[in-house]
C-alpha cells in the first residue's frame, strides 16, 4: 500500500514540475504581443494627464462624383489637466491628405484635423480611408479618423471592358454592354468609332434603348442603352485587341470600351508547362527515384467536336507513359474535353530529352477523327536525374 502511495506521489510531483516548467517557458509567447503603449493603458492613469476627446471619428461623405474633392474637419479637445501633444501618424493611403492644425493643445482647448480626399483615379464604388493621430494621452495613445462613401459617376458602363475568352475561328460571338445614366434625359449613343482600323471590319456595333426591366434594377438610373458587340469570323488565330470610342449625348467626353480576345482553333491543348506555339510540354528535371505525373487537357470546339474518338498512336521514349482519360462534355454547346495523363514512373533511368544535342524530345501522337486534327502531336522536354 505504501509502495503505491509513493509511486502516485512521485508521478504527481513529476507532472506538476513538468507543467510548471512549461508554463514558465511558453506562457509568455501567447500573451506578450501587447504593445508597451497598451500595457501603459492598463496601468492607472494620473489625474493630471491630458485627456483627448473627439466627438466623431468617422464621417460618411455619402456620394461623391468622380474627380470631385471633399473635405471634413474633425475636432480634438483636451479635457485633461496638462498639455496634450499630437503628432501625425500613418494613413491608409498617401492620396489622403490630412492636416493637423496644432500639435499642442492646452487643457480646455481644442484643435482640428482636416481630411481631404479627391475621387481621382478610382472606379465608382465604395471607398474608405483613415488617418491616425498619435497622442500623449496614456488612455488613448492614438486616434484614427475615417472617411467613407461611394464614388459615383454621371454614367456607369458595365462591364468596363470586354473579353472574348475563346472565339472559334469560324464562328461569330456577341457580347452585351450596359450603360446607365444618372442624369435626367434619355441616354443615346450619338456616334462610335473602332480605333484599330485594321480589324474594324471584323466587328459590329449596335446600340438599343435599355429595357425598363433592366433599368429598374439599377439604383438611381434614369435611362440606359444596351450595346451589342459582335466579333465576326475571319480574325486570325491568336490574341486580338480593339477599342471603341463611344459618344453619348449626356456625357461631355467620349467613353472607351476596350475589347480583347483570343481566337482559337477548334482543338486546343492546355496544361501546366504547355507551350502552345511549339506544341511543347516542359517537365524540367525529373527525379528518377520519384518520377513525375502531370496532366494536359485537349479541348475540342466546333461542329465536329464529337468526332474526337482519341487513340494513342505512338509514345517515345519508353520511359514516358501516357494514359487517356474519359472524354467529357459534348452535350449542347459544351466542348469535348479529354484529359491526357503523362508520367515518368519512379525508378526511371537517367536520360536527356532536351532537344538538339541534348537528346531527342519525347513525342506523343494521338489519333482522332477530327477533320482538322487527325493527329495531335505533343512534344515533351525533360531530363531524368538520379
Amino acid at each position, binding site marked *: 500500500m505504501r509502495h503505491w502511495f*509513493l509511486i502516485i*506521489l*512521485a*508521478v*504527481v510531483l*513529476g*507532472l506538476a*514540475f*513538468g*507543467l510548471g*516548467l*512549461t508554463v514558465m*517557458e*511558453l506562457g509568455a509567447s*501567447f500573451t*506578450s*504581443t*501587447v*504593445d508597451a503603449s497598451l500595457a501603459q493603458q492598463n496601468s492607472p492613469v494620473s489625474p493630471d494627464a491630458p485627456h483627448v476627446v473627439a466627438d466623431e471619428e468617422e464621417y460618411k461623405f455619402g456620394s461623391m462624383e468622380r474627380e470631385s474633392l471633399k473635405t471634413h474637419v474633425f475636432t480634438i479637445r483636451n479635457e485633461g489637466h496638462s498639455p496634450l501633444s499630437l503628432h501625425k*501618424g*500613418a494613413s491608409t*493611403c*498617401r*492620396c489622403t491628405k490630412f492636416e493637423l492644425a496644432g500639435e499642442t493643445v492646452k487643457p480646455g482647448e481644442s484643435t482640428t484635423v482636416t481630411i481631404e480626399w479627391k475621387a481621382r*483615379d478610382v472606379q465608382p*464604388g*465604395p*471607398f*474608405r*480611408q*483613415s488617418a491616425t493621430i498619435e497622442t500623449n494621452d496614456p488612455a488613448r495613445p492614438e486616434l*484614427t479618423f475615417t472617411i467613407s462613401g461611394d464614388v459615383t459617376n454621371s454614367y456607369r458602363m*458595365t462591364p468596363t471592358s*470586354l*473579353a472574348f*475568352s*475563346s472565339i472559334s475561328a469560324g464562328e461569330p*460571338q456577341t*457580347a*452585351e454592354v*450596359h450603360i446607365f445614366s444618372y442624369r435626367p434625359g434619355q441616354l443615346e449613343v450619338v456616334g462610335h468609332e473602332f480605333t*484599330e482600323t485594321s480589324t474594324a471590319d471584323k466587328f459590329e456595333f449596335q446600340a438599343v434603348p435599355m429595357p425598363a426591366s433592366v433599368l429598374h434594377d439599377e439604383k438611381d438610373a434614369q435611362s440606359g442603352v444596351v450595346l451589342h458587340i459582335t466579333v465576326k469570323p475571319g480574325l486570325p488565330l491568336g*490574341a486580338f*485587341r480593339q477599342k471603341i470610342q463611344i459618344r453619348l449625348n449626356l456625357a461631355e467626353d467620349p467613353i472607351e470600351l476596350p475589347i480583347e480576345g*483570343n481566337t482559337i482553333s477548334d482543338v486546343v*491543348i*492546355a*496544361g*501546366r508547362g*504547355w*507551350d502552345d506555339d511549339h506544341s511543347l510540354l516542359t517537365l524540367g528535371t525529373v527525379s528518377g527515384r520519384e518520377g513525375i505525373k502531370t*496532366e*494536359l*487537357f485537349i*479541348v475540342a470546339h466546333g461542329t465536329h467536336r464529337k468526332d474526337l474518338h482519341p487513340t494513342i498512336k505512338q509514345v517515345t521514349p519508353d520511359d514516358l507513359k501516357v494514359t487517356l482519360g474519359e472524354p*467529357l*462534355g459534348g452535350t449542347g454547346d*459544351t*466542348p469535348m*474535353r479529354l484529359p491526357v495523363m503523362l508520367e515518368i514512373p519512379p525508378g526511371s533511368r537517367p536520360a536527356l530529352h532536351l532537344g538538339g544535342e541534348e537528346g531527342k524530345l519525347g513525342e506523343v501522337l494521338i489519333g482522332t477523327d477530327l477533320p482538322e486534327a487527325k493527329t495531335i502531336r505533343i512534344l515533351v522536354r525533360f531530363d531524368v536525374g538520379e
Partner: protein
Amino acid sequence: MKSFLLSRLLPAALLCLAAAALALVIFRGGSTAHAQPAGDSPTVPSAANHWQRPASLEPTLFADWPRPKVALVLTGLLQGYIEPCGCSGKENEQGGLSRRDRLLTDLAAQNWTVVALDVGDQVRRFGRQQEIKFQAVADALKTMGYRAVGLGPNDLRLSATELLASVAPVGNQPSPFVSTNAALFAFDPKTLPLDQVIEAGGLKIGVLSVLGDEQRSQVNNQDLQFQPADKAIADGLPKLTAAKCDFLVLLASATQDESIALAKKYPQFQIVVSAGGAEVPPKQATVIEGTATRLIELGSKGMYAIVLGLYDNSPDSIRYQRVPLDARFGDSARMKRVLASYQDQLKDIGLEGLGLKPAAYPGGRKFVGSQACSECHTQAYAVWKKTPHAQALETLAHLDPPRQSDPECLSCHVTGWEPQKFFPWDGGYLSLDKTPALAGNGCENCHGPASNHVAAETFQIKASEADKERYRAELRLSLKSDADRRKVIDICLKCHDIDNSINFKGGDAFDQYWPKVEHHGKD
C-alpha cells in the same frame, strides 16, 4: 538506511523524473511538430516584437489574443498584384504573395491552427500573361496550403481550358478551388468542387463560393456554365448541413449589396466574405442587420488579410484582426521561387508568345530613341542620362528575380510602350537585341514619338518651316500655365501611379520630383 535509499527513494526519484519529462512533452504540445515548411526557413518570431509596426495603422496585431481553435485567414482580390514594387521603396508598399506566406507560416509557428480561404480574382486583366500568372498564383496558393479558393469574375474571363489546367486536382492531391454556381464547361465536382468541408482544430468548416449576378454580367466566356447564386446556395447548403458543419462560410464574389442580401436570405452562414466594399477593409467586421452574420471586406489588390480567431462554434466567440501586409512581414523563399518560375516562363514565351503585337501610335509617329535627341538637345540628354529613367531597364535586370521579360514592368522601364495597358507601340522597344536604343524610360515617353521631328530636322524628309514647327510643337511640354502643368503631371502619373510610386501624388509631389529631372528645350 542504504537499503531504504536503494529500494524506495531512488525508484521514486526516477519515477518523478520520468513523469516530469512526460509532462514537458505533453504540455509543450507540437512546438516541434509544426516543422518549418520544406524549403523555407522563416525564423520563429520573437514574441515580444514580431507583430508590431509602430508607423502603421495597425501597430500591433493579435494583442491579447489567446490561441484560437482555428485562425481563419481570409484573402482575395489579389488582382494581379503578386508582389509590391515600385520606385517608392518596398517598405512603403503593401501586399504580395511573399508577405501573405510569411503571415501564414508565422501564425503556424505560434502553434495556431491556420485555415486559409481566398475569395478569388487573382488577376485583373485578360490575355496570355494573365493565364500564366493565374497558374503561378494557383501554385502559390496550393503551396501555402489554402483550403478553399473561389473564382472571381476576372479569373473566369480567362480561357476555361487554362483555368481547368490550374484548378483541376493533380493525382491524389485534392483541389482547393471551389465554385458553387460557375462551372468550367460543365458542373463536375471531381474537376471543380462545388463546396469544401474543412476539418481543423476540432471544428468542421463548410464553405460555398458564388459569383454574384452583377459580377456574372462582367464575364463573357462561352465555355462556362452558370447558375444563379441564390439557387446554387439553396442547393448546396443541405450538403453542408448534413455534414454537421460547425461554421459556415460564404465566399461571395459579389457586390456588397448582393453579399448582404444573400447573407440575410441565408443566415446560416456565420461569415460572408464579400469581394465588394472599399479599397481598405474596416477595422472591425460588420454584423449584418437582422442576422448574426459577420460581413468581411477584404480591400483590394491583396494589400490586406483578415484573420478571424474562432474560439468555439458560437457566433459571439470570433475575434477579428485586419492585417496590413506591410514590411513587418519579410520575404518568403518559396514564394520567391514561384515568382522566379513565373518570370522564367515569361522569358521563355517572349512578347510574341504572349500575344503582344505592337499597336499603331495615334497619328502614326514612331519612336527613335533618346540618342537621336542627344544630337541637338545635349544638355537635356545629359540631365536625362544621370536620372534613374535612363537606367530603368537595368533596374529590372538587377532585381531578384530579374523582371526584364515582364510586360507589366517593361511598360514603364523602356521607351515606346503604353504604360497603363502594357503593350508596345509600333516602333517601341521589343528587346535589347532588336531595339537597344529604346532601353530605359526615354525622352519620347513623355514628349511623344519623335520620328517626324528627327526626320525633318535631319533632312531625311522634305519639310517646310511650318511643318518643322508643327513637329516641334507636337513634342513640346510647358509648365507655364496651370493647364500645361496639369498635362505634364498627368504624363508623370502614367508611370508614377499609386501602385508603383506612392510618394508621387498631386502637384506638391511634382514640385519635389521636377528638380531631379529638370531640363529645358534645345541647347
